[in-house]
């Protein structure tokens, strides 16, 4: 039995934030969960799948976030409690349906969990999902610690049913991927029966059709939707998760939410400022409860807002403060706008300490300057940068190697439009700086489709796009259809590594299994591309020669869209993880080292972590602990010094 399914009320477990969210949903009797993988949100659907049978849950990895939200909404319309999970970027993808869903409202409790990544630790941007709650007018909750990640999630389902609309719960990396003590509540023992009641009149919330809006009838639907938000604000006045700790009349009031609550508490304690600073930690960050805000603003005239990414909380509090100025008097605000809190990047206790220390003029030191200097100097000498690169034996390194070399050989200044996956490293030297555009999922092929139509304006560079197998289904298919239909002569390279690898091998529509491990029909990428009308070739990227030849054939073919599927499982995939195809070694007699015509092609350019430059001997060698035995390096060494022997 999973520890997530422990039925003992009051038991304490060490849970990751994402697991705490799952436990909250289980305690709320959630039945259907859907999502698309993305750091830091991916563990949620995976955890549901582990308890799915025991708790009669349906969980799926959907094709993309918009589909996930639709799948989840169907459960709500049928009266079930349901959760939809995605990273911040996914909310952008789902946002079209999100707007309409917020308008139609929901039935069974529906919670959208959006996990933001302040500082873009595992993302290509530092997006902000809280804005969406305001944009589509649904309530927003933010847990302020790991216990609340569970408790607030559970409450979110009740709130959703009371308001009859979707409720957003926003987490951040430091909440989703942090772990801490969580005290369990009861697991419900309820039956679930799905029934979509749709035989009632229009706008009947219980039995009517679920419709976003009748054309030209904004007042009929938008008005009641806004009344739900006003009701949420009234309910939030009494929300027990909005807490104040500090003196009755502090010199400075911190208003904060989410992980920033924990940084603020730590900062106040380390400065010994508990008697000067109060902390209002808000769990209900949209809409803000005005009376609660007024009561707290009235405590002092100095307020510091501590939050990450955009000044969402700051702006909302300022609006209320302006409206209340006649009652509470003028307030001086500190935060992102005033420059006390950085406008980009994630926060930590030290950033809050610095802000407080300067506002309140409290000196703070942690170590002596001489220690700090010595430790930094040592790090400068002895802690070389790790850099960003592909794993040893990664098929993407081999694929990008072939694409890069083939484009160089072709000589027409061809370039690659990249996409989202581990292959974003194609923008860096570790991917031979092959990728020249990089935006959102599926955009590589859309952009390439446009570039490849610029021939009439004199552009004759070969145009290549990249995408992974999961990304193909997620968002690249419409772009390929466009390219085929518009006769756009791009070459789309699909790096098919057999799963959503970057986030941990979640299945996608091309996989033979679903998240529950059940056998499923695998949708065939090759057949789709052919059916769309593209010219398709398939190669194993570990076969460098064949791959480069196929690539040349395709880029020279200038009639319409072409697809090259490079198929090789991820080096960390379950099927490759513990198997070595080759024993690889370097013949020191043959290795020319720096005298090689290539000037250390293997270590300097190819850069697989399994090959190390031995400076003293002046030769390369294989690090047998790192090498996974893909054997690709044996084919790139011009001197033939790298030997591979097939493992029996």
């Amino acid at each position: 039995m999973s520890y997530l399914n422990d039925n003992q009320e009051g038991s304490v477990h060490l849970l990751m934030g994402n697991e705490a969210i799952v436990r909250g949903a289980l305690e709320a009797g959630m039945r259907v969960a859907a999502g698309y993988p993305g750091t830091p949100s991916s563990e949620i659907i995976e955890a549901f799948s582990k308890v799915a049978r025991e708790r009669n849950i349906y969980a799926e990895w959907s094709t993309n976030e918009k589909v996930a939200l639709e799948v989840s909404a169907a459960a709500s319309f049928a009266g079930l409690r349901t959760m939809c999970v995605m990273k911040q970027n996914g909310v952008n993808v789902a946002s079209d349906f999100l707007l309409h869903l917020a308008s139609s409202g929901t039935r069974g409790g529906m919670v959208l969990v959006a996990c933001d990544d302040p500082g873009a630790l595992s993302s290509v941007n530092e997006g902000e999902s809280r804005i969406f709650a305001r944009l589509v007018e649904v309530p927003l909750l933010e847990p302020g610690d790991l216990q609340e990640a569970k408790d607030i999630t559970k409450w979110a389902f009740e709130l959703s049913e009371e308001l009859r609309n979707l409720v957003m719960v926003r987490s951040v990396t430091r909440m989703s991927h942090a772990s801490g003590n969580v005290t369990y509540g009861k697991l419900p023992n309820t039956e679930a029966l799905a029934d979509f009641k749709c035989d009632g009149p229009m706008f009947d919330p219980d039995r009517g059709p679920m419709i976003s809006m009748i054309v030209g009838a904004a007042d009929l639907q938008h008005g009641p939707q806004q009344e739900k938000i006003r009701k949420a604000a009234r309910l939030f006045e009494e929300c027990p998760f909005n807490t104040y700790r500090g003196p009755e009349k502090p010199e400075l009031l911190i208003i904060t939410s989410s992980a920033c609550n924990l940084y603020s508490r730590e900062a106040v304690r380390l400065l010994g400022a508990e008697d000067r600073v109060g902390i209002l930690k808000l769990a209900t960050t949209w809409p803000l409860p005005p009376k609660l805000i007024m009561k707290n603003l009235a405590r002092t005239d100095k307020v510091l807002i501590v939050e990450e990414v955009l000044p969402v909380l700051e702006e909302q509090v300022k609006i209320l403060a302006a409206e209340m100025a006649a009652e509470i008097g003028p307030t001086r605000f500190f935060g992102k706008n005033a420059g006390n809190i950085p406008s980009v990047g994630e926060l930590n206790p030290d950033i809050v300490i610095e802000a407080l220390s300067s506002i309140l003029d409290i000196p703070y030191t942690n170590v002596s300057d001489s220690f700090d200097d010595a430790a930094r100097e040592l790090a400068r000498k002895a802690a070389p940068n790790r850099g960003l690169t592909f794993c040893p034996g990664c098929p993407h390194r081999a694929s990008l190697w072939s694409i890069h070399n083939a484009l160089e050989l072709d000589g027409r200044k061809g370039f690659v439009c990249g996409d989202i996956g581990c292959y974003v490293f194609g923008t860096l030297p570790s991917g031979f700086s092959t990728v020249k555009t990089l935006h959102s999922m599926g955009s590589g092929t859309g952009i390439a489709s446009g570039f490849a139509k610029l021939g009439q304006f004199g552009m004759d560079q070969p145009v290549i796009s990249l995408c992974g197998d999961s990304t193909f289904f997620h968002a690249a298919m419409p772009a390929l259809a466009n390219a085929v239909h518009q006769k756009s002569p791009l070459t789309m390279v699909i790096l098919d590594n057999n799963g959503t690898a970057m986030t941990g091998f979640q299945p996608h529509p091309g996989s033979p299994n679903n998240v529950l491990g059940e056998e499923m029909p695998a949708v065939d990428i090759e057949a789709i591309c052919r059916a769309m009308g593209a010219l398709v070739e398939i190669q194993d990227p570990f076969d460098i020669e064949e791959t480069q030849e196929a690539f040349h054939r395709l880029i020279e073919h200038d009639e319409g869209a072409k697809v090259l599927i490079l198929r090789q499982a991820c080096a960390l995939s379950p099927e490759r993880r513990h198997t070595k195809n080759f024993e690889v070694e370097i013949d020191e007699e043959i290795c020319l080292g720096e005298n090689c015509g290539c000037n250390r092609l293997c270590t300097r350019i190819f850069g697989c972590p399994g090959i190390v430059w031995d400076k003293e001997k002046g030769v390369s060698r294989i690090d047998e602990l790192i090498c996974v035995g893909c054997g690709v390096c044996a084919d790139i060494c011009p001197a033939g010094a790298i030997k591979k022997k097939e493992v029996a």
Partner: protein
Amino acid sequence: MKTSALQRDPYNVIITGVGGQGNVMASRILGSMLVSKGYFVTIGETFGPSQRGGSVMSHLRISGESSWSPQIPAHRADLIASLEPAEAVRVMAQYGNPDVHILCNTRPIYPVPVIRGEEEYPSVEDIKISLKSLASHTFFIDATEEAQKLGNTIFANIILLGAIYGTHLLPLEREDFVEAISQRFRQDQIEINLTAFDRGCELLAR
């Protein structure tokens, strides 16, 4: 409350290493061991976008009072346990202080710029000398070599856990480890992990 058994409250541990060394697993097991003893544990994980080869760091806050920030404030670590020497140095610069205890595996994993020949990786002996000059207590173990003797380098993380236990800096008992791994590993993996744990503890006693 359990505060008395901790040298400080919160007591701050950083487990660091390189992606693929089992850093996160080690921090979760250590955290579970302490939660079962009644402590509040908060863990923050920092890892970059690459699954292999990047710096990885887990911050553990152990307290008898409450949860804490999942990020330890600068220079406030009490124990730095590292699966890789250069990572110990990196963490020392940001979170170290003169009173910190350092427990370090001596097997380097070379960063890509070093592999490329663009940057230097100093000798492990030099790293040892420098860390000794900065920290009050240092322990160096060859966890990777010991793990290889057990058949797989991945056991280095469990050997490191055994060594953490062996420092007696934390209120841990061997039984806590047995309980924690029983919840996480298959039955046939328990014995080898227990052997690794004991080996780590012995390495420190030497």
